[in-house]
C-alpha cells in the first residue's frame, strides 16, 4: 500500500542526501574528533563544518551551537542549565501549551521548591503579552515559550517576547523544535538566549538535537562529563548524526522558500477542500500566524482515533489530539487550553506536511476523508440528534 505521510510534526523522512552524507562516518571516518592523530582530527574538521551549517540556518555563530541527543535533552539542558546558574531565583514562566519536554519539567520543578507560572492562551491559541510582562519579577530565572506549537502550528511572536523578557532581566529560552527548518529564523536580530531544536523534524535522523546558547549567557552544563562541546555537554560527539544534521540544515535553508510557498499552498488546499466537502468542521489555531505545513482540524461529533484508524487503513498517516489515541482520557492539553469545545476536541486531526508531499496526495486525502467522516457520523448518536434537531 502506498503511504501518504502527513505526520511530519511527529517526525520526518530522513532525506536520502542526508543518509548518503552520513554513511562514510560509520565505518570509514570513524575516528574520535577529540583524538590527537590525523585520522580523528579530520573528523573534527567535518564536525566543525556541520556546526557552521547548523549555525547558518538560524543566523547564529558556530561557537553558539551545542549538539545534544534530542529536542527534549536540549529543553531540559536549557532550563536546568539556567536554574543552576541562578540558584537564588526560584521562579519560572512558561505556557500551558508547551510540549511535554518543557511542561512536564515545569510540573516536576513546581514540586521541588520552584514557583511556576503557566501562561494561558486564548481561543485561537495566542498569548496575552501583557500577562507575560506582568508575570516577570526579580525572582524569575527563566521564561520558556515555544516558537511554534506542535499540534496547531500557531506561532508565538518570539521576537517581541524575547524583547520583553530581556528588558526585564530574565533569561529567555524557546523550544523551536517545530519552527526550525519550516520558517526563517534570524538569531542575529531576535534576542533569544537559548533555543532548542531537533534533527528528525527537518529530515535529519532521530537521535540528534541542538541547543543554541547565545554568547555571554550563563549556563551550567546539564550532561556532565568530558570537555566536548566546549565543556557545555559531555559525551563523545555523535559524529555521523552531526554530519547528517549539517546536511539537513543546508537543505532546509534552500527549501525554506518552497516550504513557505508550495507546502503552504498544499496545506491551504487541503484545508479549503475539507471545509468545502465536510460540514461541521472547525480549524484550530490562529490562521493568521501558523506554520505553513500544519493543519489542525476538528470534525464535530466523531472521535479522532476512529478517524485515524480508518485513514491508516488507506495508507494515510496523520495524528490526533483526541484522548483515546494517547491513552489519557482527556483531549490534548493544547486544545483544552484553547477552550476548543468538547464536541470538537475529541474529533481533532492534525495533518502536517513536508516538501515530499504532492498535489496528488492532497487530492487523494480529499477524496477519501469525507466518506470516513460520514460513516462515523452515521454511527454517532449525537450526529443523528443534531440533524434531527436541525431538520
Amino acid at each position, binding site marked *: 500500500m502506498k503511504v501518504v505521510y502527513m505526520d511530519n510534526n511527529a517526525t520526518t523522512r530522513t532525506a536520502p542526501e542526508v543518509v548518503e552524507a552520513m554513511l562514510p562516518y560509520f565505518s570509514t571516518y570513524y575516528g574520535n574528533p577529540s583524538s590527537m592523530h590525523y585520522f580523528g582530527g579530520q573528523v573534527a574538521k567535518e564536525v566543525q563544518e556541520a556546526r557552521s551549517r547548523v549555525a547558518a540556518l538560524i543566523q547564529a555563530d558556530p561557537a553558539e551551537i551545542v549538539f545534544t541527543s534530542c529536542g527534549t535533552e536540549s529543553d531540559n539542558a536549557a532550563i536546568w542549565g539556567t536554574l543552576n546558574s541562578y540558584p537564588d531565583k526560584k521562579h519560572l514562566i512558561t505556557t500551558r501549551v508547551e510540549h511535554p519536554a518543557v511542561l512536564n519539567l515545569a510540573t516536576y520543578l513546581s514540586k521541588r521548591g520552584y514557583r511556576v507560572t503557566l501562561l494561558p492562551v486564548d481561543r485561537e491559541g495566542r498569548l496575552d503579552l501583557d500577562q507575560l510582562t506582568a508575570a516577570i519579577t526579580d525572582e524569575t530565572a527563566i521564561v520558556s515559550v515555544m516558537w511554534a506549537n506542535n499540534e496547531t502550528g500557531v506561532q508565538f511572536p518570539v521576537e517581541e517576547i524575547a524583547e520583553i523578557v530581556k528588558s526585564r532581566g530574565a533569561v529567555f529560552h524557546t523550544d523551536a523544535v517545530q519552527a526550525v527548518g519550516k520558517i526563517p529564523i534570524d538569531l542575529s536580530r531576535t534576542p533569544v538566549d537559548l533555543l532548542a531544536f531537533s534533527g528528525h523534524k527537518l529530515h535529519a535522523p532521530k537521535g540528534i538535537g541542538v541547543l543554541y546558547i547565545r554568547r555571554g549567557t550563563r549556563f551550567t552544563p546539564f550532561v556532565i562529563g568530558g570537555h566536548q562541546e566546549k565543556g557545555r555537554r559531555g559525551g563523545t560527539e555523535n559524529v555521523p548524526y552531526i554530519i547528517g544534521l549539517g546536511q539537513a540544515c543546508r537543505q532546509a535553508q534552500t527549501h525554506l522558500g518552497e516550504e513557505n510557498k508550495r507546502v503552504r499552498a498544499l496545506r491551504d488546499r487541503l484545508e479549503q477542500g475539507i471545509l468545502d466537502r465536510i460540514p461541521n468542521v472547525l480549524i484550530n489555531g490562529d490562521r493568521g500566524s501558523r506554520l505553513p505545513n500544519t493543519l489542525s482540524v476538528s470534525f464535530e*461529533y*466523531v*472521535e*479522532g*482515533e*476512529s478517524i485515524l*484508524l*480508518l485513514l491508516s*487503513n488507506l495508507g494515510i498517516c496523520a495524528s490526533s489530539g*483526541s*484522548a*483515546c*489515541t494517547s*491513552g*489519557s*482520557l*482527556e*483531549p490534548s492539553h493544547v486544545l483544552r487550553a484553547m477552550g476548543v469545545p*468538547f*464536541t470538537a476536541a*475529541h474529533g481533532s486531526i492534525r495533518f502536517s506536511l513536508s516538501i515530499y508531499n504532492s498535489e496528488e496526495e492532497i487530492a487523494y486525502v480529499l477524496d477519501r476523508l469525507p466518506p470516513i467522516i460520514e460513516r462515523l457520523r*452515521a*454511527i*454517532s*448518536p*449525537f450526529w*443523528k440528534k443534531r440533524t434531527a434537531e436541525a431538520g
Partner: protein
Amino acid sequence: MWDYTEKVKEYFENPKNIGEVENPDGVGEVGSLACGDALRLTFKLDEDQRIKEARFQTFGCASAIASSSALTELIQGKTLEEAEKLTNKDIAAFLGGLPKEKMHCSVLGEQALSAAIANYRGRTIPKQQEGEIVCECFGVTDKEIERVIRENGLKTREEVTNYTKAGGGCETCHDKIEALLARVLKEEREARPAEGPPRPALTNIRKMKLIEETLEREIKPALKADGGDIDLIDIDGNKVLVALRGACSSCRAAEVTLKDYVELKLKEFVTPEITVEEVKP
C-alpha cells in the same frame, strides 16, 4: 498504535447492528460528548420475551465502537434475566480482549445494557441517584466504581481509571478513589475468611464445584456467543479434561481458546495449578 485484536478491528471496521430499533422496548443512553465516548442502545423483544433485535449508536474510539457492536451480538436471543448477567468482562472476552487502557469501553457497554433494561421495566436510573459522584470530570459515582472493582477484581487506582475513567482528568479525586479501593479490598478480604491468605488447599469436592461453577459462569457464555460450547468430561487431580462442542470443535483456534481462555479462567478462579486438556471424540 493500540494493540487491538483482529476481532476488535473486524467489529470496528464492519460493525454489526448499527442504528436504532424501530419502536424499541428498551433504550439505554450512557456517556457524553464531554467524556469522549457515548453509547445509545435500543432493543426489541419477541413474543417469548427474548431480545429479538438490538442496535447501537456510538461516539468513540475503535474499541468503543467494537464493544458496542459486540454487546448487541451478545444479547441477541437472550431473555432480559439472562442479558442482565452479562458484564463488561464478557464483552472484552468476546472481542478477544481489550488493551487495559480501553477496558472502560466494555464497561460502557455493560452500563448501556443496564440502562436499557431499566428503561424497559419503566425505571430510569440517573447516575446521580446511584451513589455519590467521586470523579467530577467524568461524573463517575462511588457505587459505579465499587461495582467495577468487585466485578473485575481491580487492585490499583490505575486499573480503576482504565476501567471507569474515574481519576483520568484533573486527578484531584485520586485520594478518594484510593480510599474507596482500600475499603472494598478490605471488605472482599473479610468476606472470604474461610479461605484466608494464602489460598488454602482445596478439597476435591470444593475444587470440582469451583471448576463447574467457573465453566458455567465465566466460560460457557463467551464460547456460546461464538456459536460454540464446552463440556466437562473428567477431573484428574489438577488436570481438567473437556470436550469442545459446536463451532469450537471445528475451530482452528480451539487450542488457543483452550489454553488462553479456558485454562486462564480456571487458573484464576480455581487454582493456579490447573491444566486443561481436550478429549477428542
